[in-house]
């Protein structure tokens, strides 16, 4: 039996309408759980090639959009399988939410080219199209692989990697304990193991909450504007916010606290914080501001790091570049209306996303917005810097979390063999994102860390 797949089949942009397509044996069952026709007739009872007007409901029985569901019965559909297409209003948030509901109700995210692959395998496309299909899939695979590669350095991947690391450690202990029972190993510490499982589950929950694309679309992205004093942070803030929120003077160190505002950017919202300039200072009031700024950078989901193009790179700038390594960040080179003195290459070497603007004249504002959109992943298949979770990452985390819950139950019941198997399964699911295998990682860890063997 083929798995049932779902995807947003139209471009992920704000548009009049957008379509979520579901294909596979359970397509109608999945559609039934997401969509309710006004007529009350379930999707699975609809005749092929008919449409119904109704609403998309979330898990809590809230209607999220008015939509049309159209169904195609196997084998007479694009893929040759049962297909349901839900046409929603084309806001990114609604489309993503609808898609996610499909995934939560049993569908798997479709890989690039998967609908077409199925169409071909089910004889819906002619032989002459085979090459084209292969090309399509391989190109899709390439870009997905590239996106995944980029995402590896992202915040989410970093955290997933950390969780996996802790689980591998525990699993290696369980493996050594089970596979080398005669060795002088420490006894199994069920309490410690339980703590690891609980904290991994909590971490997963926390990630699902904080990197949720839906949440970010609704609540906005915590964005911090950082830079040494007087590079134009407040001017940038005002440019983006469109009103004079920060006090702008020529005196370095004017902003002594954090000023906040929100900015709509296409379909999503930036929650902007203008921070005090980061520099070494003896002024007590200002130094509190600087400390707050540093904390704000640590907590930020996006940092706009501002540099002055009319000045050379200072020690404070370099400190900032160092503090930003590995964070989702855009370097904003400001004051391009003034003569250039800055060595921009040094910045480009450290931060991949760089835009040049004049915050004063407004030149470069659109480029900045575009770069932000790109970095946040709303224009690409997978988020490049990974502050918004992809549905694939989300699904993996949910499944891994479930398996860890099973492991906890097994541990409470003293079924340690089942604990190991469930933890390994969770690791396998998380490693799916990097292409490694749990058993190899665990066994490497066993021999690296335990003195076992005859």
């Amino acid at each position, binding site marked *: 039996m083929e798995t049932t797949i779902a995807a947003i089949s139209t471009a992920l942009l704000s548009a009049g309408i957008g379509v979520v397509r579901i294909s596979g044996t359970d397509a109608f069952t999945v559609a039934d759980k997401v969509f309710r026709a006004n007529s009350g007739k379930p999707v699975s009872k609809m005749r092929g090639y008919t449409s119904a007007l109704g609403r998309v409901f979330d898990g809590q029985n809230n209607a999220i959009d008015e939509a049309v569901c159209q169904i195609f019965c196997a084998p007479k559909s694009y893929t040759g399988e049962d297909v349901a297409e839900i046409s929603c209003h084309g806001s990114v948030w609604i489309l993503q939410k609808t898609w996610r509901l499909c995934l939560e109700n049993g569908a798997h995210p479709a890989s690039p*080219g998967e609908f077409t692959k199925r169409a071909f395998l089910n004889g819906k496309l002619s032989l002459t199209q085979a090459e084209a299909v*292969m090309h399509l899939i391989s190109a899709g695979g390439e870009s997905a692989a590239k996106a995944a590669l980029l995402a590896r350095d992202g915040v989410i991947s970093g955290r997933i990697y950390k969780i996996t690391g802790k689980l591998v450690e525990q699993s290696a202990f369980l493996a050594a304990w089970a*596979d080398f029972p005669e060795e002088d190993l420490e006894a199994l510490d069920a309490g410690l193991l339980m703590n690891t499982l609980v904290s991994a589950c909590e971490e997963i929950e926390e990630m699902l909450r904080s990197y949720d694309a839906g949440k970010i679309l609704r609540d906005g992205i915590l964005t911090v504007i950082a830079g040494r004093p007087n590079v134009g942070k407040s001017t940038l803030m005002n440019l983006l916010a469109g009103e004079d929120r920060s006090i702008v003077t020529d005196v370095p160190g004017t902003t002594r606290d954090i000023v906040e505002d929100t900015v709509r950017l296409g379909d999503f919202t930036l929650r902007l914080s203008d921070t005090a300039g980061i520099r070494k200072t003896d002024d007590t009031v200002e130094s509190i501001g600087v400390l707050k700024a540093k904390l704000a950078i640590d907590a930020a989901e996006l940092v706009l790091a501002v540099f002055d193009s009319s000045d050379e790179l200072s020690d404070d700038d370099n400190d900032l570049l160092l503090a930003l390594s590995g964070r989702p960040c855009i370097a904003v080179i400001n004051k391009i209306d003034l003569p250039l003195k800055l060595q921009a290459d040094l910045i480009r070497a450290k931060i991949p996303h760089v835009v040049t603007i004049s915050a004063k004249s407004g030149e470069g504002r659109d480029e900045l917005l575009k770069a932000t959109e790109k970095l946040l992943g709303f224009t690409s298949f997978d988020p490049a810097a990974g502050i918004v979770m992809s549905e694939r990452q989300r699904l993996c985390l949910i499944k891994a979390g479930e398996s860890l819950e099973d492991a906890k139950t097994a541990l409470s019941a003293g079924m340690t063999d089942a604990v*190991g198997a469930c933890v390994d399964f969770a690791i396998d699911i998380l490693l799916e994102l990097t292409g490694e295998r749990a058993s190899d990682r665990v066994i490497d860890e066993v*021999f690296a860390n335990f003195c076992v063997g*005859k």
Partner: protein
Amino acid sequence: MTEYFAGEYDVAVIGGGHAGAEASLASARLGASTVLFSMSLDALCNLPCNPSVGGTAKGHLVRELDALGGEMGKAADAVFLQSRMLNRGKGPAVHSLRVQVDRAKYHLHMKKVLENQPGLSLKQAEIADIRLDENGAVKELVTALGAVYRVKAAVICTGTYLNGKVFVGDSVLKSGPDGLHAAEKLTASIARLGLRMQRFKTGTPARAHRDSIDFSKLETQLGDEPVTPFSFATGGALKNTLACHIAYTNEKTHEIIRGNIERSAMYSGNITGIGARYCPSIEDKVIRFADKKRHQIFVEPMGLDTAEMYLQGASSSLPEDVQIKMYRTIKGFERIEIMRVAYAIEYDCIDSAQLKPTLESLKIPGLYGAGQFNGTSGYEEAAAQGFVAGVNAAHKALGKAPFTLMRSGSYIGTLIDDLVTKGCLDPYRMMTSRSEYRLLLRQDNADTRLTPIGRELGLIGNTRWEMFLIKQKQIEDEKRRILAINLPPSEEINRLLLEKGTTPVTTGVKMAELLKRPQMDYESLLPFDEDRPELSRDVTEQIEIQIKYEGYIEKQKSQVKAREKMEKQKLPDDINYGEIQGIRLEAREKLSKIRPESVGQAARISGVSPADISVLLIYLEQQKRMAK
């Protein structure tokens, strides 16, 4: 050298260790005329390392082999000295049987079985050359004395004999294990056939005289009563006869090792072979885990009729004088007399990625490999592969279909899948953690999983098959009966529940629900089960595990099912990965090298992405339609 034609066989097996024995028995029992060549018939099924069979995951392999109709389990039951079920209390999936055996008797027992097997000839000879026919398939084997045998298939199970080199300190000796000759001619012949070779290393500890050890200073380790036999066919009560003992190294031991480390062959750079990670020498343990204050040494009897004791945990390649000094620092070993020194041994083997899941060479039809030759280590791993290679060699010769075991159905299948899909970078030992399906692949249900397959092969006789069917029916009937029982709440039942430390019931409850509680077991519910039939422990154990682990077992079953379709979709032998546009270069190279049998195996190759698999599926469909 003058050659002469010495005879014709369907299958030849090169090497008479545990792989060779299972291979030749399986082959002969399937009706293929079979010849087994061994460098020394006095070393058939020798145990040159530890005198034991089984252990974690290895015990699973032996039981699976037995369930399929192999010999190792029966032999171990016949000559064991002490038996233990390891990991009791850690869950049934990791229970593993391990026995100490009488080394000399094991050899004699197996020699007798081999000698009495109809259709099997034993020959003491060194095979020097393997020759191919005009199609590149195996045709002839030539012995070092010029005897030429015509064969349809050959299984190579050369163990540590192939270009064997023994290291003790700075002394290097061309030798096989236990002072036997090395096989020095065959490597060149195999290399000429175009197989990629590599060099691995293993080691063994010293043997000491029993009377020179002060056992009063050591811990004693007794066997389990009652003894669980390895073979599902072994009846009657088995008895433990000897104990094992445990000694510990100390700071002084470690000081001597550290002080002489540069004299160890392993640290002097003489050894180039890759060692087994799970079989570290005592010097490795001391150097790598410097914070450990002591290491265990198990003192194991080599047999009833010998005073030799095996010092498990202390393998070494230190020079003889250092070994003696080192052992004598150990409490209980103060006056120890070493009879055989510890040594490291290096040998030639192949990269197992050159094999199919049948263990046949991808390149040379009719040539099979098993055991250390394929890069594994361990008697049990060897025997398991020997069986599969032997069955396939016989099937090839007899014109029958290839035989493979699924990864999801057995540890043997997992072992072989790992070997042929990943290759071996260092000697491979089976571990329970290598199986993602280990809650399904337990040692207790090896018969349920594999005896029907053994029967279909023709290796399970009628009596055993009937016994098997009866047991399966008993399990099914009893499980159905238990699932139907409802218990009303009563004082008696609540007294039992409280006594066991679990919550009492206020309403009626299913017996199966009570059985699911971790504190409860099948036995204790007897007073509430008037109609309970008399059943063996083997049967009731199955009921208990199946009910207790139901949720986990079902999850693993659905994981297996999710992959089933891909596992069943076979890839044609002649597929040319070079011509498939759209598969990434890395994946194309890996696929061309490993030549997976199924889409499922292809998907397990590291470096092959889901997108590559999709392209492959499209290609297969394209080829299928073009063929029409």
